[in-house]
Protein backbone atom coordinates (compact mmCIF):
# COMPACT_ATOMS: atom_id res chain seq x y z
CA UNK A 1 0.00 0.00 0.00
CA UNK A 2 2.89 2.28 0.85
CA UNK A 3 4.32 1.74 -2.62
CA UNK A 4 1.07 2.72 -4.32
CA UNK A 5 0.93 5.90 -2.31
CA UNK A 6 4.44 6.66 -3.48
CA UNK A 7 3.44 6.08 -7.09
CA UNK A 8 0.47 8.43 -6.83
CA UNK A 9 2.69 11.03 -5.20
CA UNK A 10 5.22 10.61 -7.97
CA UNK A 11 2.51 10.86 -10.65
CA UNK A 12 1.10 13.96 -9.03
CA UNK A 13 4.45 15.68 -8.72
CA UNK A 14 5.31 14.72 -12.32
CA UNK A 15 2.12 16.42 -13.47
CA UNK A 16 2.31 19.42 -11.15
CA UNK A 17 5.96 20.19 -11.84
CA UNK A 18 5.39 20.03 -15.61
CA UNK A 19 8.75 18.34 -15.91
CA UNK A 20 10.22 19.33 -19.31
CA UNK A 21 11.46 15.88 -20.28
CA UNK A 22 8.15 14.35 -19.20
CA UNK A 23 6.35 16.91 -21.33
CA UNK A 24 8.48 15.96 -24.32
CA UNK A 25 7.82 12.26 -23.76
CA UNK A 26 4.08 12.84 -23.43
CA UNK A 27 3.98 15.08 -26.50
CA UNK A 28 5.86 12.51 -28.58
CA UNK A 29 3.60 9.69 -27.36
CA UNK A 30 0.51 11.64 -28.37
CA UNK A 31 1.93 12.78 -31.69
CA UNK A 32 3.07 9.33 -32.74
CA UNK A 33 -0.16 7.61 -31.71
CA UNK A 34 -2.49 10.29 -33.09
CA UNK A 35 -0.68 10.42 -36.43
CA UNK A 36 -0.67 6.61 -36.62
CA UNK A 37 -4.39 6.42 -35.85
CA UNK A 38 -5.21 9.13 -38.41
CA UNK A 39 -3.22 7.39 -41.14
CA UNK A 40 -4.80 4.07 -40.18
CA UNK A 41 -8.25 5.70 -40.32
CA UNK A 42 -7.70 7.20 -43.76
CA UNK A 43 -6.72 3.75 -45.02
CA UNK A 44 -8.75 1.49 -42.74
CA UNK A 45 -12.23 3.02 -42.80
CA UNK A 46 -12.58 3.01 -46.62
CA UNK A 47 -11.06 -0.48 -46.63
CA UNK A 48 -13.61 -1.68 -44.07
CA UNK A 49 -16.45 -0.03 -46.00
CA UNK A 50 -15.25 -1.53 -49.28
CA UNK A 51 -15.16 -5.04 -47.82
CA UNK A 52 -18.68 -4.45 -46.50
CA UNK A 53 -19.95 -3.19 -49.87
CA UNK A 54 -18.35 -5.45 -52.46
CA UNK A 55 -18.55 -9.18 -52.96
CA UNK A 56 -15.31 -10.57 -54.37
CA UNK A 57 -13.43 -13.87 -54.29
CA UNK A 58 -11.46 -14.23 -51.08
CA UNK A 59 -13.69 -11.81 -49.20
CA UNK A 60 -14.35 -14.30 -46.41
CA UNK A 61 -10.64 -15.01 -46.05
CA UNK A 62 -9.97 -11.29 -45.92
CA UNK A 63 -12.49 -10.77 -43.12
CA UNK A 64 -10.96 -13.64 -41.13
CA UNK A 65 -7.49 -12.20 -41.74
CA UNK A 66 -8.50 -8.70 -40.59
CA UNK A 67 -10.16 -10.10 -37.47
CA UNK A 68 -7.11 -12.24 -36.71
CA UNK A 69 -4.71 -9.33 -37.21
CA UNK A 70 -6.57 -7.41 -34.52
CA UNK A 71 -4.77 -9.71 -32.10
CA UNK A 72 -1.34 -9.35 -33.73
CA UNK A 73 1.25 -9.21 -30.91
CA UNK A 74 2.86 -5.74 -31.00
CA UNK A 75 6.35 -7.21 -30.82
CA UNK A 76 5.65 -9.21 -34.00
CA UNK A 77 4.48 -6.06 -35.76
CA UNK A 78 7.62 -4.38 -34.45
CA UNK A 79 9.84 -7.17 -35.73
CA UNK A 80 8.21 -7.04 -39.18
CA UNK A 81 8.64 -3.27 -39.43
CA UNK A 82 12.17 -3.55 -38.03
CA UNK A 83 13.20 -6.04 -40.71
CA UNK A 84 11.52 -3.86 -43.34
CA UNK A 85 13.21 -0.61 -42.27
CA UNK A 86 16.57 -2.03 -41.25
CA UNK A 87 19.45 -0.99 -43.53
CA UNK A 88 19.70 -4.59 -44.65
CA UNK A 89 15.94 -4.64 -45.32
CA UNK A 90 13.98 -3.62 -48.43
CA UNK A 91 13.18 -0.10 -47.18
CA UNK A 92 16.53 0.48 -45.49
CA UNK A 93 17.31 3.33 -47.88
CA UNK A 94 14.66 5.46 -46.21
CA UNK A 95 16.78 5.61 -43.06
CA UNK A 96 13.67 5.54 -40.86
CA UNK A 97 14.78 3.00 -38.26
CA UNK A 98 15.08 4.44 -34.74
CA UNK A 99 13.02 7.52 -35.66
CA UNK A 100 9.45 8.54 -34.70
CA UNK A 101 8.48 7.81 -38.32
CA UNK A 102 9.29 4.13 -37.79
CA UNK A 103 7.15 4.13 -34.63
CA UNK A 104 4.25 5.63 -36.58
CA UNK A 105 4.55 2.91 -39.23
CA UNK A 106 4.62 0.14 -36.61
CA UNK A 107 1.54 1.54 -34.90
CA UNK A 108 -0.30 1.89 -38.21
CA UNK A 109 0.36 -1.82 -38.77
CA UNK A 110 -1.15 -2.54 -35.35
CA UNK A 111 -4.14 -0.23 -35.57
CA UNK A 112 -5.19 -0.62 -39.22
CA UNK A 113 -6.72 -4.11 -38.79
CA UNK A 114 -8.76 -2.91 -35.80
CA UNK A 115 -10.18 0.06 -37.67
CA UNK A 116 -10.84 -1.92 -40.85
CA UNK A 117 -12.39 -4.97 -39.17
CA UNK A 118 -14.64 -3.04 -36.78
CA UNK A 119 -15.74 -0.48 -39.38
CA UNK A 120 -16.49 -3.33 -41.80
CA UNK A 121 -18.86 -4.80 -39.22
CA UNK A 122 -20.55 -1.49 -38.49
CA UNK A 123 -20.89 -0.44 -42.13
CA UNK A 124 -22.30 -3.82 -43.10
CA UNK A 125 -24.91 -3.50 -40.35
CA UNK A 126 -25.89 -0.06 -41.58
CA UNK A 127 -25.92 -1.19 -45.20
CA UNK A 128 -28.43 -3.90 -44.29
CA UNK A 129 -30.73 -1.18 -43.07
CA UNK A 130 -30.14 1.26 -45.93
CA UNK A 131 -29.70 -1.07 -48.93
CA UNK A 132 -33.18 -0.82 -50.48
CA UNK A 133 -33.33 2.93 -50.02
CA UNK A 134 -29.90 3.29 -51.63
CA UNK A 135 -30.87 1.19 -54.64
CA UNK A 136 -34.12 3.14 -54.87
CA UNK A 137 -32.11 6.37 -54.97
CA UNK A 138 -30.00 4.91 -57.75
CA UNK A 139 -26.75 5.04 -55.77
CA UNK A 140 -23.67 3.21 -57.02
CA UNK A 141 -21.49 1.36 -54.52
CA UNK A 142 -18.72 3.97 -54.58
CA UNK A 143 -21.39 6.62 -53.89
CA UNK A 144 -22.75 4.58 -50.97
CA UNK A 145 -19.36 4.56 -49.24
CA UNK A 146 -19.18 8.17 -48.04
CA UNK A 147 -22.85 8.13 -47.01
CA UNK A 148 -22.36 4.98 -44.94
CA UNK A 149 -19.13 6.20 -43.36
CA UNK A 150 -20.71 9.51 -42.40
CA UNK A 151 -23.84 7.89 -40.98
CA UNK A 152 -21.64 5.51 -38.96
CA UNK A 153 -19.63 8.44 -37.60
CA UNK A 154 -20.38 7.89 -33.90
CA UNK A 155 -19.50 4.23 -34.07
CA UNK A 156 -16.37 5.11 -36.04
CA UNK A 157 -15.34 7.60 -33.35
CA UNK A 158 -15.55 4.81 -30.77
CA UNK A 159 -13.55 2.54 -33.06
CA UNK A 160 -10.99 5.31 -33.51
CA UNK A 161 -10.61 5.51 -29.74
CA UNK A 162 -10.14 1.75 -29.51
CA UNK A 163 -7.38 2.10 -32.08
CA UNK A 164 -5.81 4.97 -30.18
CA UNK A 165 -5.93 2.90 -27.00
CA UNK A 166 -4.04 0.07 -28.65
CA UNK A 167 -1.50 2.42 -30.21
CA UNK A 168 -0.75 4.41 -27.07
CA UNK A 169 -0.66 1.38 -24.78
CA UNK A 170 1.66 -0.89 -26.73
CA UNK A 171 5.37 -1.04 -26.02
CA UNK A 172 6.85 -3.99 -27.92
CA UNK A 173 6.68 -2.44 -31.37
CA UNK A 174 7.86 1.08 -30.56
CA UNK A 175 10.67 -0.28 -28.40
CA UNK A 176 11.93 -2.39 -31.26
CA UNK A 177 11.72 0.11 -34.11
CA UNK A 178 12.18 3.30 -32.07
CA UNK A 179 15.01 2.12 -29.82
CA UNK A 180 13.82 4.17 -26.82
CA UNK A 181 16.34 6.92 -27.59
CA UNK A 182 16.17 9.69 -25.04
CA UNK A 183 14.75 12.89 -26.52
CA UNK A 184 14.10 11.26 -29.90
CA UNK A 185 12.00 8.11 -29.65
CA UNK A 186 11.33 7.77 -25.94
CA UNK A 187 7.58 7.57 -25.28
CA UNK A 188 5.48 6.88 -22.19
CA UNK A 189 5.45 3.11 -22.47
CA UNK A 190 9.15 2.70 -23.23
CA UNK A 191 9.97 5.03 -20.32
CA UNK A 192 7.92 2.81 -18.07
CA UNK A 193 9.89 -0.24 -19.22
CA UNK A 194 13.15 1.63 -18.70
CA UNK A 195 12.26 2.81 -15.19
CA UNK A 196 11.07 -0.67 -14.26
CA UNK A 197 14.45 -1.97 -15.46
CA UNK A 198 16.19 0.51 -13.19
CA UNK A 199 14.11 -0.71 -10.29
CA UNK A 200 12.39 2.69 -9.98
CA UNK A 201 9.02 1.04 -9.50
CA UNK A 202 7.19 4.06 -8.01
CA UNK A 203 8.38 6.27 -10.88
CA UNK A 204 7.38 3.59 -13.42
CA UNK A 205 3.95 3.29 -11.88
CA UNK A 206 3.71 7.07 -11.65
CA UNK A 207 4.36 7.33 -15.38
CA UNK A 208 1.73 4.63 -15.90
CA UNK A 209 -0.78 6.69 -13.95
CA UNK A 210 0.04 9.75 -16.05
CA UNK A 211 -0.50 7.68 -19.22
CA UNK A 212 -3.80 6.36 -17.93
CA UNK A 213 -4.86 9.89 -17.02
CA UNK A 214 -4.07 11.13 -20.53
CA UNK A 215 -5.93 8.31 -22.23
CA UNK A 216 -8.90 8.99 -19.94
CA UNK A 217 -8.77 12.68 -20.80
CA UNK A 218 -8.87 11.94 -24.53
CA UNK A 219 -11.69 9.44 -24.11
CA UNK A 220 -13.70 11.86 -22.00
CA UNK A 221 -13.19 14.60 -24.59
CA UNK A 222 -14.29 12.36 -27.42
CA UNK A 223 -17.28 11.15 -25.42
CA UNK A 224 -18.44 14.69 -24.66
CA UNK A 225 -17.94 15.77 -28.25
CA UNK A 226 -19.86 12.73 -29.47
CA UNK A 227 -22.72 13.39 -27.07
CA UNK A 228 -22.97 17.04 -28.06
CA UNK A 229 -22.98 16.27 -31.76
CA UNK A 230 -25.37 13.38 -31.29
CA UNK A 231 -27.81 15.66 -29.56
CA UNK A 232 -27.56 18.17 -32.36
CA UNK A 233 -27.74 15.87 -35.37
CA UNK A 234 -29.18 12.60 -34.12
Amino acid at each position, binding site marked *: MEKNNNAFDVALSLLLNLDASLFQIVALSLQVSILAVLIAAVLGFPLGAAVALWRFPGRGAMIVLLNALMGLPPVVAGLMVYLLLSRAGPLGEWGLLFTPGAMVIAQVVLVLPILAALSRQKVEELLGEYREQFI*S*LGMSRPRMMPTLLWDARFALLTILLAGFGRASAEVGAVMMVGGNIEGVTRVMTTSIVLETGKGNLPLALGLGIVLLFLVMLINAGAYLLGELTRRRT*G
Partner: protein
Amino acid sequence: MSSFNVPLLASSTLVPPPALCFDDVAFSHEDKVLLGPCSFNLDCTGPTLVMGPNGAGKSLLLRLAHGLLSPTQGRVAWSGHKRPRQAMVFQQPVLLRRSAVANLTHALAVNNVPRRTRVKLAYDALERFGLTACSNTPARVLSGGEQQRLALARAWVLSPQVLFLDEPTSALDPAAIKAVEAAVREFHQRGTRIVMTTHDLHQARRLAGDVLFVSGGKVREHTPAEAFFDAPASREAQAYIAGELVE
Protein backbone atom coordinates in the same frame (compact mmCIF):
# COMPACT_ATOMS: atom_id res chain seq x y z
CA MET B 1 -30.85 4.48 -62.09
CA SER B 2 -32.46 7.87 -62.45
CA SER B 3 -30.79 10.54 -64.48
CA PHE B 4 -31.74 13.94 -63.31
CA ASN B 5 -32.47 16.63 -65.85
CA VAL B 6 -33.45 20.13 -64.86
CA PRO B 7 -35.42 19.82 -61.61
CA LEU B 8 -39.03 20.57 -62.27
CA LEU B 9 -40.92 23.27 -60.51
CA ALA B 10 -43.61 22.02 -58.20
CA SER B 11 -46.44 23.59 -60.20
CA SER B 12 -45.50 22.22 -63.59
CA THR B 13 -46.64 18.79 -64.69
CA LEU B 14 -44.34 15.89 -65.45
CA VAL B 15 -43.84 14.00 -68.67
CA PRO B 16 -46.12 10.95 -68.40
CA PRO B 17 -44.07 7.81 -67.84
CA PRO B 18 -43.97 4.92 -70.27
CA ALA B 19 -45.98 1.76 -69.55
CA LEU B 20 -44.61 -0.81 -67.11
CA CYS B 21 -44.73 -4.33 -68.56
CA PHE B 22 -44.56 -7.53 -66.54
CA ASP B 23 -43.84 -10.25 -69.09
CA ASP B 24 -44.30 -13.76 -67.64
CA VAL B 25 -42.60 -12.59 -64.44
CA ALA B 26 -42.03 -14.96 -61.53
CA PHE B 27 -39.93 -14.77 -58.39
CA SER B 28 -38.90 -17.81 -56.44
CA HIS B 29 -36.68 -18.33 -53.45
CA GLU B 30 -35.17 -21.70 -52.58
CA ASP B 31 -37.39 -23.51 -55.08
CA LYS B 32 -40.52 -21.91 -53.72
CA VAL B 33 -42.45 -19.69 -56.11
CA LEU B 34 -43.43 -16.57 -54.15
CA LEU B 35 -44.97 -14.61 -57.01
CA GLY B 36 -46.23 -15.29 -60.55
CA PRO B 37 -45.81 -16.18 -63.19
CA CYS B 38 -47.82 -13.11 -64.17
CA SER B 39 -48.10 -10.74 -67.11
CA PHE B 40 -49.74 -7.33 -67.15
CA ASN B 41 -49.26 -3.78 -68.42
CA LEU B 42 -49.47 -0.69 -66.26
CA ASP B 43 -50.24 2.15 -68.64
CA CYS B 44 -53.25 3.80 -66.99
CA THR B 45 -53.08 7.11 -65.15
CA GLY B 46 -53.77 5.54 -61.73
CA PRO B 47 -53.37 5.82 -58.95
CA THR B 48 -52.89 2.06 -59.13
CA LEU B 49 -53.66 0.36 -55.84
CA VAL B 50 -52.12 -3.08 -55.40
CA MET B 51 -54.53 -4.91 -53.13
CA GLY B 52 -54.74 -8.27 -51.53
CA PRO B 53 -54.44 -10.04 -48.20
CA ASN B 54 -51.26 -10.09 -46.13
CA GLY B 55 -48.60 -12.33 -47.63
CA ALA B 56 -50.19 -12.22 -51.08
CA GLY B 57 -46.96 -10.93 -52.68
CA LYS B 58 -47.88 -7.23 -52.97
CA SER B 59 -44.57 -5.92 -51.61
CA LEU B 60 -42.65 -8.36 -53.75
CA LEU B 61 -44.48 -7.15 -56.84
CA LEU B 62 -43.66 -3.55 -55.96
CA ARG B 63 -39.96 -4.35 -55.43
CA LEU B 64 -39.80 -6.17 -58.76
CA ALA B 65 -41.49 -3.23 -60.47
CA HIS B 66 -39.09 -0.72 -58.89
CA GLY B 67 -36.05 -2.84 -59.65
CA LEU B 68 -34.99 -3.56 -56.06
CA LEU B 69 -35.27 -7.25 -56.92
CA SER B 70 -34.71 -9.05 -60.19
CA PRO B 71 -37.26 -11.63 -61.32
CA THR B 72 -36.05 -15.23 -61.40
CA GLN B 73 -38.12 -15.72 -64.54
CA GLY B 74 -39.51 -13.38 -67.21
CA ARG B 75 -38.85 -9.71 -67.69
CA VAL B 76 -39.87 -6.42 -66.10
CA ALA B 77 -39.58 -3.67 -68.69
CA TRP B 78 -40.61 -0.15 -69.45
CA SER B 79 -41.95 0.49 -72.95
CA GLY B 80 -39.79 2.94 -74.83
CA HIS B 81 -36.05 3.37 -74.38
CA LYS B 82 -35.49 4.94 -71.03
CA ARG B 83 -36.38 3.97 -67.50
CA PRO B 84 -38.57 6.67 -66.03
CA ARG B 85 -37.42 8.59 -62.99
CA GLN B 86 -38.85 6.80 -59.99
CA ALA B 87 -38.87 6.77 -56.22
CA MET B 88 -40.19 4.54 -53.47
CA VAL B 89 -41.66 5.11 -50.01
CA PHE B 90 -41.38 2.16 -47.64
CA GLN B 91 -43.67 0.97 -44.87
CA GLN B 92 -40.88 1.78 -42.40
CA PRO B 93 -39.23 4.92 -43.78
CA VAL B 94 -35.46 4.48 -44.12
CA LEU B 95 -33.97 7.79 -43.07
CA LEU B 96 -30.33 8.71 -42.76
CA ARG B 97 -28.82 9.58 -39.39
CA ARG B 98 -28.83 13.29 -40.15
CA SER B 99 -31.18 16.26 -39.96
CA ALA B 100 -34.46 16.30 -41.89
CA VAL B 101 -33.14 18.80 -44.43
CA ALA B 102 -29.87 16.88 -44.83
CA ASN B 103 -31.87 13.80 -45.80
CA LEU B 104 -33.35 15.76 -48.70
CA THR B 105 -30.11 17.45 -49.81
CA HIS B 106 -28.41 14.03 -49.74
CA ALA B 107 -31.00 12.57 -52.13
CA LEU B 108 -30.53 15.58 -54.42
CA ALA B 109 -26.74 15.33 -54.26
CA VAL B 110 -26.90 11.66 -55.20
CA ASN B 111 -28.92 12.73 -58.26
CA ASN B 112 -26.33 15.32 -59.25
CA VAL B 113 -28.44 18.38 -58.52
CA PRO B 114 -26.08 21.38 -58.28
CA ARG B 115 -25.19 22.32 -54.72
CA ARG B 116 -26.78 25.75 -54.86
CA THR B 117 -30.26 24.58 -55.84
CA ARG B 118 -30.29 21.64 -53.39
CA VAL B 119 -30.99 23.65 -50.27
CA LYS B 120 -33.78 25.68 -51.84
CA LEU B 121 -35.51 22.60 -53.26
CA ALA B 122 -35.16 20.87 -49.88
CA TYR B 123 -36.71 23.72 -47.88
CA ASP B 124 -39.53 24.11 -50.44
CA ALA B 125 -40.39 20.43 -50.04
CA LEU B 126 -40.19 20.60 -46.25
CA GLU B 127 -42.65 23.50 -46.32
CA ARG B 128 -44.99 21.65 -48.68
CA PHE B 129 -45.12 18.68 -46.31
CA GLY B 130 -45.44 20.82 -43.17
CA LEU B 131 -41.99 20.00 -41.85
CA THR B 132 -40.38 23.44 -41.83
CA ALA B 133 -40.35 23.57 -38.03
CA CYS B 134 -38.29 20.39 -37.77
CA SER B 135 -35.94 20.95 -40.69
CA ASN B 136 -32.88 20.79 -38.43
CA THR B 137 -34.20 18.03 -36.20
CA PRO B 138 -32.42 14.69 -36.50
CA ALA B 139 -34.64 12.68 -38.86
CA ARG B 140 -34.70 9.65 -36.61
CA VAL B 141 -36.17 11.42 -33.60
CA LEU B 142 -39.22 12.64 -35.59
CA SER B 143 -42.59 11.02 -34.92
CA GLY B 144 -43.77 8.16 -37.15
CA GLY B 145 -46.07 10.46 -39.13
CA GLU B 146 -43.37 13.09 -39.55
CA GLN B 147 -40.86 10.48 -40.66
CA GLN B 148 -43.25 9.20 -43.33
CA ARG B 149 -43.93 12.74 -44.52
CA LEU B 150 -40.17 13.32 -44.69
CA ALA B 151 -39.84 10.18 -46.81
CA LEU B 152 -42.56 11.60 -49.09
CA ALA B 153 -40.78 14.96 -49.23
CA ARG B 154 -37.59 13.14 -50.21
CA ALA B 155 -39.49 11.46 -53.04
CA TRP B 156 -41.03 14.82 -53.97
CA VAL B 157 -37.69 16.64 -54.48
CA LEU B 158 -36.69 13.94 -56.94
CA SER B 159 -39.75 14.73 -59.14
CA PRO B 160 -40.33 11.07 -59.94
CA GLN B 161 -42.43 10.05 -62.94
CA VAL B 162 -43.39 6.93 -61.02
CA LEU B 163 -43.78 6.67 -57.25
CA PHE B 164 -44.06 3.33 -55.49
CA LEU B 165 -45.52 3.26 -51.99
CA ASP B 166 -45.45 0.08 -49.93
CA GLU B 167 -48.13 0.16 -47.21
CA PRO B 168 -47.08 3.71 -46.31
CA THR B 169 -49.80 4.23 -43.70
CA SER B 170 -50.02 0.87 -41.95
CA ALA B 171 -48.17 2.07 -38.85
CA LEU B 172 -49.75 5.52 -38.59
CA ASP B 173 -52.57 7.19 -36.69
CA PRO B 174 -55.60 8.64 -38.57
CA ALA B 175 -54.29 12.22 -38.73
CA ALA B 176 -50.98 11.03 -40.18
CA ILE B 177 -52.81 8.74 -42.61
CA LYS B 178 -54.80 11.71 -43.81
CA ALA B 179 -51.63 13.70 -44.44
CA VAL B 180 -50.05 10.84 -46.38
CA GLU B 181 -53.15 10.38 -48.53
CA ALA B 182 -53.22 14.12 -49.27
CA ALA B 183 -49.60 13.90 -50.32
CA VAL B 184 -50.33 10.95 -52.59
CA ARG B 185 -53.08 12.99 -54.29
CA GLU B 186 -50.68 15.87 -54.71
CA PHE B 187 -48.11 13.62 -56.40
CA HIS B 188 -50.89 12.30 -58.64
CA GLN B 189 -51.98 15.80 -59.59
CA ARG B 190 -48.42 16.73 -60.49
CA GLY B 191 -48.43 13.87 -62.97
CA THR B 192 -46.52 11.23 -61.03
CA ARG B 193 -47.89 7.76 -61.64
CA ILE B 194 -48.70 6.22 -58.27
CA VAL B 195 -48.35 2.52 -57.59
CA MET B 196 -49.25 1.79 -53.98
CA THR B 197 -49.94 -1.33 -51.95
CA THR B 198 -52.52 -1.41 -49.21
CA HIS B 199 -54.65 -3.96 -47.45
CA ASP B 200 -57.05 -1.26 -46.30
CA LEU B 201 -60.17 -1.44 -48.44
CA HIS B 202 -61.40 1.99 -47.42
CA GLN B 203 -58.11 3.61 -48.29
CA ALA B 204 -58.23 1.92 -51.68
CA ARG B 205 -61.73 3.26 -52.29
CA ARG B 206 -60.55 6.79 -51.41
CA LEU B 207 -57.48 6.74 -53.66
CA ALA B 208 -57.67 4.16 -56.42
CA GLY B 209 -57.98 4.89 -60.14
CA ASP B 210 -57.44 1.23 -60.88
CA VAL B 211 -56.80 -1.87 -58.81
CA LEU B 212 -54.31 -4.69 -59.26
CA PHE B 213 -55.54 -7.55 -57.09
CA VAL B 214 -53.02 -10.11 -55.86
CA SER B 215 -53.61 -13.21 -53.79
CA GLY B 216 -51.63 -16.39 -53.23
CA GLY B 217 -48.72 -15.04 -55.27
CA LYS B 218 -50.87 -14.60 -58.38
CA VAL B 219 -52.21 -11.44 -60.03
CA ARG B 220 -55.96 -12.17 -60.14
CA GLU B 221 -57.19 -9.09 -61.98
CA HIS B 222 -56.41 -5.54 -63.06
CA THR B 223 -59.63 -3.52 -63.16
CA PRO B 224 -60.66 0.18 -63.10
CA ALA B 225 -61.55 1.13 -59.52
CA GLU B 226 -65.30 1.68 -59.93
CA ALA B 227 -65.79 -1.64 -61.66
CA PHE B 228 -63.60 -3.40 -59.13
CA PHE B 229 -65.46 -2.19 -56.09
CA ASP B 230 -68.89 -2.75 -57.76
CA ALA B 231 -68.29 -6.21 -59.12
CA PRO B 232 -64.80 -7.71 -59.09
CA ALA B 233 -64.15 -10.18 -61.87
CA SER B 234 -62.15 -12.78 -59.94
CA ARG B 235 -63.57 -15.10 -57.34
CA GLU B 236 -60.70 -14.23 -54.92
CA ALA B 237 -61.41 -10.50 -55.12
CA GLN B 238 -65.12 -11.08 -54.65
CA ALA B 239 -64.41 -13.03 -51.48
CA TYR B 240 -61.89 -10.38 -50.29
CA ILE B 241 -64.38 -7.53 -50.74
CA ALA B 242 -67.09 -9.54 -49.10
CA GLY B 243 -64.84 -9.73 -46.06
CA GLU B 244 -64.01 -13.41 -46.22
CA LEU B 245 -60.56 -14.69 -45.30
CA VAL B 246 -58.61 -15.15 -48.52
CA GLU B 247 -55.20 -16.76 -48.75
